[in-house]
């Protein structure tokens, strides 16, 4: 054991600017706000090459540059110190819903967000006990349907609809976060296991409608179970996660008796409202179960698109589908000496950013200096 390195929970012992410089922390802070090296260099008053060297670990910034970097990136200088809990976001095996439309920088930004979310849970665990992670180990040769059935058994879910999916997942130690519009929209939704803690991050585009939200969460659970170790990416992996989600939310055996004999959108709507899935996913299920043809399904999709009301069935109206783990943990931590400023100090980021990670609106008044006043 290294004596010169503080323990993971000795965060407060890293004095302002006193720790050695950890290059990956700079990258994390930079990509988190979506800044390019050139942007940051201009802001800090150094060359883009210098930023590159800092991030490559070739050079360490001088103390004054470190302060300017911290200011520009809205973190404490100690954020860059060695020995802090460091989830190497650049080495995470994450799976992204939007494969084609996502740029590398968008993915990095999303992963940096996930890394900070994990750090937040890590710090919260100084004050509160979070649910143990309870995901079964999956044999590599299991099909998505078999994996879905295994998870249902492992979580002792009764036959029928999966009730309150997000609350259920959080109770099994999965951290779920919906990041605000505009932050990581391009990635849609993704998941990663960070130091054994499963984290699912979604965006309003996926989560505004409760049925799409539930399917997304189930899809990411599929990735966490089946693909975390392989790190495999691509359309086939996404298809497997879709199959997992369909089998998890609407098991074939139950659907065989519940689905109508013929395509009937009114009946599918009623069924979807019981099982917590969209009519579109039930039409797809009907094709899979041989109840209808591809051409009939295509017409049904067109009709559903015409009928779709984007404002209908918001996730916020379903308490069991709204993430609560982080906010509950933060509230309890605050009662036991770990309020937001304390968390911010431990994380070496601003209190505003902690509230942002917790999904809390910053309602404090904005104060401005008035020149000549």
């Amino acid at each position, binding site marked *: 054991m290294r004596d010169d390195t503080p323990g993971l*929970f000795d965060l407060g012992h890293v004095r302002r600017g006193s720790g050695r410089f950890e290059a990956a922390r700079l990258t994390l802070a930079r990509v988190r706000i979506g800044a390019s090296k050139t942007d940051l260099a201009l802001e800090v008053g150094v060359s883009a090459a210098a930023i590159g060297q800092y991030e490559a670990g070739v050079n360490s910034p001088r103390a004054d540059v470190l302060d300017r970097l911290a200011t520009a990136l809205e973190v404490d200088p100690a954020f860059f110190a060695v020995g802090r809990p460091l989830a190497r976001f650049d080495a995470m095996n994450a799976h992204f819903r939007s494969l084609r439309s996502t740029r590398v920088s968008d993915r990095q930004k999303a992963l940096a967000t996930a890394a900070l979310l994990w750090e937040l849970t890590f710090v919260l665990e*100084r004050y509160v*006990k979070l649910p143990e992670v309870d995901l079964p180990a999956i044999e590599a040769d299991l099909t998505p349907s078999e994996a879905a059935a295994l998870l249902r058994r492992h979580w002792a879910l009764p036959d029928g*609809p999966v009730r309150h999916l997000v609350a259920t997942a959080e109770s099994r130690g999965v951290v779920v976060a919906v990041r605000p519009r505009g932050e990581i929209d391009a990635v849609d939704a993704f998941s990663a296991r960070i130091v054994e803690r499963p984290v699912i991050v979604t965006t309003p585009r996926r989560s505004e409608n409760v049925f799409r939200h539930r399917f997304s969460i189930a899809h990411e659970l599929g990735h966490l179970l089946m693909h975390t170790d392989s790190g495999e990416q691509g359309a086939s992996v996404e298809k497997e996660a879709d199959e997992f989600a369909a089998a998890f939310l609407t098991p074939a055996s139950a659907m065989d008796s519940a689905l109508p004999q013929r395509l009937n959108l009114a009946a599918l709507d009623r069924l979807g409202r019981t099982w917590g899935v969209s009519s579109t996913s039930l039409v797809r299920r009907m094709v899979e179960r041989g109840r209808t043809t591809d051409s009939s399904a295509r017409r049904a999709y067109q009709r559903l698109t015409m009928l779709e009301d984007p404002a209908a069935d918001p996730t916020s109206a379903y*308490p069991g589908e709204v993430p609560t783990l982080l906010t509950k943990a933060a509230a*309890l931590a605050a*009662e036991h000496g770990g309020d937001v400023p304390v968390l911010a100090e431990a994380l070496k980021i601003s209190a505003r950013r902690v509230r942002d990670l917790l999904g809390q609106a910053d309602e404090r008044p904005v104060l401005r200096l008035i020149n000549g006043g």
Partner: protein
Amino acid sequence: MVPVSPANVLGSHAEHVRPLVVETVRARHDRSAEAHEVSESRYATGFGTQWRDLLDDMETALRQGGGYETYRLPPAGYKLAVVNDCLVYVWRVPGHVDGASMFASSPTRRNAFSAKLPDPALFQPGYTGEPDPDLDPLQQLEVTRVVNEAVARVMPLVLVMVRSSPRQLQSIHWAVADLDQASGTVQLHGLECIWSPESAAQDASTDVEAFDSGVPNGPAVEPRRQEETPPDA
């Protein structure tokens, strides 16, 4: 007096026939509704032509699914199933018609009220009119009496009434119908709704708790005691 209703006249067959009727009507409705949608027709005329297929579908379903005999209704020759000595007629009630008043407006449909029991062979497979060597003369007389009575008897008419539009199957009712020959009006006895969108929704959710039912059990968090070591420390 036992009230006249489809359940009475169909007897023990009612339980078997009822789901067959519902399934057949729904399947034909779904096909017709889809055809209407595909055609992008502005009018429901095409949708309305399902009535003849509906009759054939019902006869086929009852014959294949229950082994029931077929009766040809003159003069048009519609094929109808005979269940427990009752004629089963499925009729899509035209949108503008109030109740079953219009049912007897066609000569063929009117004949449904006077259909006699089919050939006695229906009741006793192998019956040829010749004395059965296994029966004693007294029994043989009784059989002849029953058959003659049956031949003379008019079959009750179980009328299945379907209300639908291209947008939705609205309801399926059934009743025993008879005709007042003098006034020409149709009376319904034991009218019962055997399917509606509401009942279907209820069936679909029977014994199934919806995904949002009950109060969610959120994740349990508890304060960490001082002496406890956090994970990874």
